[in-house]
Every structure is written in structure tokens, then in C-alpha cells.
């Protein structure tokens, strides 16, 4: 086990990142956390996480941006909201996990071939193209991109779905795709305008 220096220098804290999290929708009560750990206990997936949800909240409010954005935790969250209803300080932990995922994607910090961020991106692309998601195509596309071997393992499940008529090959599309694109493009334009104003 290589000896590793564990001390963290204050210079590694990104106060501005901590401020950004508090400013986001859902991050309002972040500073009121008393580190009681009920979110980690409520979370059905915390046993697989490198940082339990409680530690992510503490690292985020202190500004340890690198540790938070490169953690597995934010990607293992299945948004079941168990932590949110248990939290005695009413911190919206699930929304915080979402905004950290978005920031991780934006900064390209997420683990490369880790399936979940790839799933999120593919999901978005499919909606932009067809307006609706076809589960079969989504899963196939996901595994072709991340892990060939696992795709082979899904064959059994695929056969079962075909047997029970729950497999659908053709993508299902909405009629007015242009309308949906106009909405999404309008938001992109708005965001660019904001970014330009922010810079000027």
C-alpha cells in the first residue's frame, strides 16, 4: 500500500466552488449541515461510494472541488430522495448530487468509460433527435460505447424481452420535433448571451 501524503493545504480549497454550490437551486441549506450522517445511512448505495453523501456535503461546502467532482458518489446516486426526506436540516441532497454531476460533465472530470455519465449524455442526444427514448436502443448504444463484454451478458435478458413482447427496435419519435428543438435552442442562445454578458 503506497504511503500517501494525506494532509490538505488550504490552497487546495476552492472557496468560489463552495459559493457556487450554495448559489444553485437546491444548494441553499448546504451550510447548515450538522454532519449527522442520516443521509449516508438512508442511502441504499452508500456502501459502494468512495465518499459517503455526508462527506460529499462537507467537502463541497469547504470547497474541495477536485475530490467532489471526481468521486464515484455523485454518479452512484439513483435519485431515490431517501436522504432528502430524512435530512433534519432539510438540505436537498439529491438536487446537490445533480448539480455536481452537471458541473462534472461541464468540466469533463467524470470517469471516462464509467457508464452512467455516458448514459446521461446518450439519453440527452436521443431526446434531442427523436423527442422520445427507446430503452432497447439506449441500452445497446450505451454498452457498445462503454463495455462490449457486458453487452454480451445482456443477451439472455434481450431474449426474455423479445419472448414477452417488450422489446421495441424502431425509435419512437414525436411529430413536432422542430418545436422541441426550438425550445432547446432558445435556451442555448439564452445561455450564450448570459456567458457573454458575464465575461464583458
Amino acid at each position: 500500500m503506497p504511503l500517501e501524503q494525506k494532509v490538505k493545504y488550504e490552497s487546495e480549497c476552492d472557496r468560489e466552488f463552495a459559493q457556487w454550490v450554495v448559489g444553485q437551486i437546491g444548494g441553499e441549506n448546504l451550510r447548515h449541515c450538522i454532519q449527522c450522517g442520516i443521509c449516508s445511512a438512508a442511502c441504499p448505495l452508500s456502501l459502494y461510494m468512495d465518499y459517503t453523501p455526508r462527506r460529499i456535503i462537507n467537502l463541497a461546502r469547504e470547497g474541495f472541488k477536485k475530490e467532489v467532482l471526481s468521486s464515484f458518489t455523485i454518479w452512484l446516486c439513483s435519485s431515490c430522495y431517501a436522504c432528502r426526506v430524512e435530512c433534519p436540516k432539510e438540505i436537498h441532497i439529491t438536487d446537490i448530487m445533480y448539480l455536481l454531476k452537471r458541473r462534472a460533465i461541464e468540466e469533463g472530470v467524470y470517469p471516462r468509460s464509467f457508464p452512467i455519465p455516458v448514459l446521461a449524455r446518450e439519453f440527452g442526444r436521443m431526446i434531442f433527435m427523436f423527442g422520445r427514448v427507446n430503452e432497447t436502443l439506449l441500452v445497446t448504444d450505451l454498452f457498445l460505447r462503454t463495455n462490449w463484454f457486458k453487452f454480451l451478458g445482456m443477451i439472455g435478458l434481450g431474449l426474455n424481452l423479445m419472448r414477452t413482447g417488450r422489446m421495441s427496435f424502431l425509435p419512437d419519435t414525436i411529430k413536432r420535433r422542430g418545436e422541441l428543438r426550438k425550445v432547446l435552442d432558445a435556451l442555448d442562445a439564452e445561455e450564450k448571451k448570459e456567458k457573454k454578458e458575464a465575461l464583458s
Partner: protein
Amino acid sequence: MKYLYFPGCSLKGTGRAYEESFLAVFKALGLEVRELEDWNCCGATAYMSVDETKSYALAGRNLAIAERSSDLDVIAPCSACYLVLNKTQKGLKENPELRRKVVNALKAAGLDYKGKVRVRHPLDVLINDVGVEKLAKFITKPLKGMKFAPYYGCQVVRPYSTFDDQYNPVTMDKLIEAVGAECVSWPLKTRCCGGSLTGTLPEVGLRLAYILIKEAKKRGAGAIVTLCPLCQFNLDGYQDKIASKYERVDIPTLYFTQILGLAMGLPESELGIKRGIISAEAVLAGR
């Protein structure tokens, strides 16, 4: 009573049996249901990780279309759709800045969002609008001798316990008893089934599904009754993988609309009973 119906992608795909039994039961109860014209995907749990404003606008488009077509309530059977539509309503009401952006974006496409429409769940409609007494009149073939474990999943009851309690929901329990079956009491009613993780990260997600089916079987449930297409898929679809990793459990997973349909004497073919990967024949034969 008339309602708009927002199916969502799952009910057209792996959750087809949920749509079939939902439409059949509501038709038999005389509740007119009209599918929302040109609905688009609600974004479920994945899209919110990509872009917040766009995911609100995405779901907002459905709400705008619903408000334009009529002032009827919209029924969203799938838990993820039900949560996202509710979360959009609430998010846009509580964040004026977000609302301004989304409303303007929708206007750019000729859509108008006011936030009037109410998003409902079929279970809420059955228990609260129709009522258990009225339902009892439609029960012609009660499922005597059956033991079902009610599984609510997470997103229908959390974070907004709109029509039922988030710790100990009871609406589906009432329905199970209304159809004449015995409702198994167990503490995992609202414990997460793994959601999208069961498929993408089996080494993580399978364990959650395994915990549920093992405990339900241990408590003597003949089948698990759920109200979410993703939960049904996770509990029903992966029992082979769970058998190889943990142990074989073999318990069918049905929708509450399916067992209600059976108790109302509707034919199995109309309720998509055959769509279950783990067959429910043996369990249902005993009725």
C-alpha cells in the same frame, strides 16, 4: 370523470403491460382517458444530470400542451414521469428566474405554460376519486388466498408525499385488500430498487433488487405488486442474474392495475399478464 394520460417512454417499451392493464381497468371503470397529443420524454432521472434548465423546459413542454388542450388532470402512471412533472411544477413556481427562462423558451416555440394543470397518479385517482367502496362493486372475481407484497418504490412517495405518506404509504395496501387478496406487511415498501443502476452497474444495482425479492418471498408473498415500470423491470428482468450472483428466488412482479383488472374479471390477455418474465401463472392459478 375524464383525464388526460401521459404514458412516458417506458409504458410504450418494457412497461407495456402497465399501459395495457391501466387502460383496460380505467375503461372498465368508466373513466375516460385520452393520451396527451405529441407528448415528449420527461427526461426521467438522467436528463437532469445534463442540463437543469433544459430538463425543466423538456417537461414544461408536456405541461404546456396539456394546458392548451384542456383543463383536465394529467395522469402519469410511471413514477419517474410523475416525479419529474411534479418537480417541474414546483421548481418553476418557486424559482422565478428559472421560470422566466423556461416560459420564454416555450414561447419561442409558440407554447404557453401557466402551471395550472394538476399531475395525478392512477393509484391516487382509484383510491381518492373513485374510492374503495365504489371499486368493491366492480370486484367480481376476488383474488382469494393470494398474498401480495406492496412495493411503492421511491419516486412516487418521495420527495413530495403528494397523495400518500413517505414513510408508510398505504394506498396500494388498501387496493390489495379491496381485490380480496392478503397484503403482506414488510419494511421495504419504499426502499430503492436500484433504478437505472441495475442495468448500467449490475455489480451495484442487482443487490438492491435481490434484497427486495428475497425479503418479499421470505414473508410469504406470492408476488410483488408495484406501480413503476422501472421497478417492475428491475425486479422481474434480472432474476436470472440474481440467481447466479446470489440465489434463485423466482417471484413474479405484477402491476396494481393488473391485479385490479383480474379481480374485475377482465381477461388476462387484455392485462398483459403474459408479459412478466417470471411467469405469474402458478400464483394466479390458485385463485
